């Protein structure tokens, strides 16, 4: 579990390490860089998002330590928990109709969600980025076929596609690994076109840049141009789609679970499944079985969306807020900002 958490952050770190090399490596990391750059409301949004997401990830990783009971535990030393017990006593958030502890299910549910997100996003990033790169760089009929296929995938409602994939992979429901993989792969199918489109568009743009032409004039091979010059420049927007997709992945997973295509309660905790089982409770005044898993979904999605939206705003110089300056303050820039500026040492004109 800890392992997948690490891959998660490393992924963001390696995908874009642009910016000036004057600052340390730490402040060049995405998210950290943006956090230092932001001011005012945008900083507030980003911080709130990061805190919520941080709590979510920590809860997921530390689930075995912080959770009072196991996700499929029905009894302890003092006997069975009993069904639909209100919050209080040894069950802080009460128990479900099936007799599980609600708090434990919510905490373990974070772990399931995180695993699914990590697997889904890694699979779709690799597949989407590679296909987008090849398709955009070489163009031609291959490109057309890919674009048509992925546009067709886009045309399907994503949840329907996820359901179909889930049935194909696991026949509906299964154990932890099978269920998680089924959910992750079905989400992957929905997300590949998004990465594909973004990377392809960037590749097509970068392909026309002078530095790529320059590499072609030098006689560099296609593979070298693709990986050394195009790929690293094309991945700048990935952390952004990554965060927004992660929140969408949670929703898709919860949707699958709610519709009964999720993971068995004995195999793993899953918020959507718990919500499904809590539907009948709501009308009989048992609020705690539905509220807490629902709240968990809302908070996890909110946190990631806040991070994603803030990154989006900060990436655009026109949307980015800056500290206001005093009238006529600051120094006149020594060199100009635009290409073609002059430095003092350049200024030796033949007399």
């Amino acid at each position, binding site marked *: 579990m800890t392992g997948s958490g690490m891959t998660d952050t490393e992924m963001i770190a390696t995908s874009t390490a642009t910016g000036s090399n004057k600052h340390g490596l730490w402040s060049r990391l995405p998210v950290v860089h943006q956090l230092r750059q932001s001011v005012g409301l945008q900083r507030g949004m980003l911080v709130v998002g990061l805190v919520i997401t941080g709590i979510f990830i920590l809860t997921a990783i530390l689930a075995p330590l912080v959770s009072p009971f196991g996700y499929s535990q029905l009894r302890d030393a003092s006997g069975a928990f009993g069904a639909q017990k209100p919050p209080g006593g040894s069950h802080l958030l009460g128990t479900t109709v099936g007799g599980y502890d609600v708090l434990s299910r919510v905490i373990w549910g974070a772990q399931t969600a995180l695993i699914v997100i990590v697997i889904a996003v890694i699979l779709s990033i690799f597949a989407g980025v590679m296909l987008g790169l090849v398709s955009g760089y070489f163009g031609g009929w291959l490109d057309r076929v890919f674009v048509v296929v992925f546009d067709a995938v886009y045309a399907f409602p994503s949840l329907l596609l996820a359901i179909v994939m889930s049935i194909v992979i696991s026949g509906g429901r299964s154990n932890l690994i099978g269920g998680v993989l089924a959910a992750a792969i079905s989400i992957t199918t929905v997300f590949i076109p998004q990465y594909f489109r973004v990377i392809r568009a960037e590749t097509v743009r970068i392909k026309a840049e002078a530095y790529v032409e320059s590499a072609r004039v030098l*006689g560099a091979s296609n593979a070298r141009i693709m990986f050394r010059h195009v790929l690293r420049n094309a991945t700048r927007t990935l952390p952004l789609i990554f965060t927004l997709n992660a929140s969408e992945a949670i929703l898709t997973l919860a949707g699958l679970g709610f519709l009964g295509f999720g993971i068995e309660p004995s195999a793993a905790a899953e918020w959507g499944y718990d919500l499904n089982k809590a539907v009948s409770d709501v009308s009989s005044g048992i609020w705690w079985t539905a509220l807490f898993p629902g709240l968990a979904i809302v908070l996890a999605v909110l946190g990631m969306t806040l991070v994603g939206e803030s990154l989006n705003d900060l990436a655009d110089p026109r949307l980015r807020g800056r500290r206001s300056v005093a009238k006529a303050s600051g120094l006149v820039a020594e060199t100009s900002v635009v*290409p073609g500026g002059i430095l003092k040492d350049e200024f030796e004109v033949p007399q």
Partner: protein
Amino acid sequence: MSDVLTITDLGISFSTDAGAVRAVDGVSLRVAPGEVLAIVGESGSGKTVTAKTILGLLPETATASGVVLLSSKDGSSEHDILSIGKRKLRQVRGTDVSMVFQEPSTALNPVYTVGWQIAEGIRAHGQFSRKEAKAKAIEILGRVGIPDPETRVNYFPHQFSGGQKQRVVIAMALVLDPGLIVADEPTTALDVTVQAEILDLLRRCRDEFGTAIVLITHNMGVVADLADRVAVMYQGKVVEEADAQTLFSSPQNDYTKRLLAAVPHVGQGIAHAAVRAEAREPAWLELPPVVVADNLTIEYPGRFGRAGFTAVDGVSFVIRPGEVLGLVGESGSGKTTTGRAIAGLTRVTGGSLTVLGHEMHGFKEREFKKLRSDIGFVFQDPASSFNPLLTIAECVAEPLVVHGRAQNPAGARTRVNELLEAVQLPRAYGDRYPHELSGGQRQRASLARALALEPSLLIADEPTSALDVSVQARVLELFAELQEEFGFAALFISHDLAVVDILADRIAVLYKGKLVEEGTGAEVLGAPKDPYTQRLLASLPVPDPAEQADRREKLRRLRAAG
């Protein structure tokens, strides 16, 4: 009569990611009615920001101090642009002051007719019926020299040429008869021959409409052609202000002197080329040429049944070893396409092109690859010709690694340091990223990369057109030095005759894909035979008001004759 515009102690600061940056620092200027004030300066000098302040067009990140006092044409009202509200500002724009933009093709909305766009400005300032507004639009289009304005008022922007679009933009600025027009680099995006026409039109604006003009430009020739008074800006300050005659004949400030000295003149390089020609041995003519183009034709395929576009049409020339051929032409003349074809970036569709003994018509990348180490290429825009994620040293090492002369960028570092020193960059710059270098420095690094494999042929596609004049002078000098030292043959592509003249042994002039004239600098520039070359040469403004007035006369006669 009082001044139309008085700027007193203007200071503008921008808030950026790196903190406050001051763009304009205590600038004071004034413009009398019917006067053309040129603000000259290199990029980053604050000239455009000053001009935008006059219209209250500063972005939200800017804070301004000082006073910008604008009077209406009849002198009935005065406003301080920096302190009046948005509603008042909107009334002032268009009626008291208006703007001509740099790029006419983006200043016009492509989905409306030009008549609608002109009428929009009229109807924003008072009660006019649709008919009246259209009548006014037709009248103004006629006055700025659009033929047949009654029909063309209903045309869309894409149906006009670049020069005509700029005329429409000027018509939009003039239609409410403002006392002042701010023209921000109005001719920079246009070809030289079109530029001369637009400058004529702006001169007529002043004479016929009595409009004062604030002309923002970096081109000293344009200043000499049009301006009554000149303000030179450097690093946010006005370093010198004088009337045009005085400024060009006896500049006072050191910066102005150096700026004027850096402007290339036609005829500078003729003596140099003659010396080079004499130094060559007679047997040189017998050597096999590096590039032979014979009836070279390059056609871009058309879309779905439309005919293709012929970019280069039956061009023939040769480049001999160690010779610099200057290729001159306006946009769309096919000069860049020719250069790209020699480098194997564009396919040849007809005729024959032999590069280093290899036929490029129907070439295979696999066979050509070996020859690529003998060809260097310098791109136009130094900002985009380097991979932003690699250091300068890694970029310069790239050709060495690709052709197996070094295992990795680190192994090539010794050679890279030599190259950086050859282009007069400090070794330490190798560890910087491209965006940490200025435009001129980047273009030098670009030269270093092109020369890394000691090619026998270098193609330079407008290598200095994105640079400021003073930087351009430096890069051109360096290019000449390197050419002497390494002795490569070069194809030097430029739209600027004066720049080509400095470097080239021979000059070829392209017009609409055809080679109209070829010869030494003395032949082509001294006594041009083709009418197009004559027109091109006469259109080129020179940085001397008196001489420019003569040239203007000459151009008028040429146009009348042709």
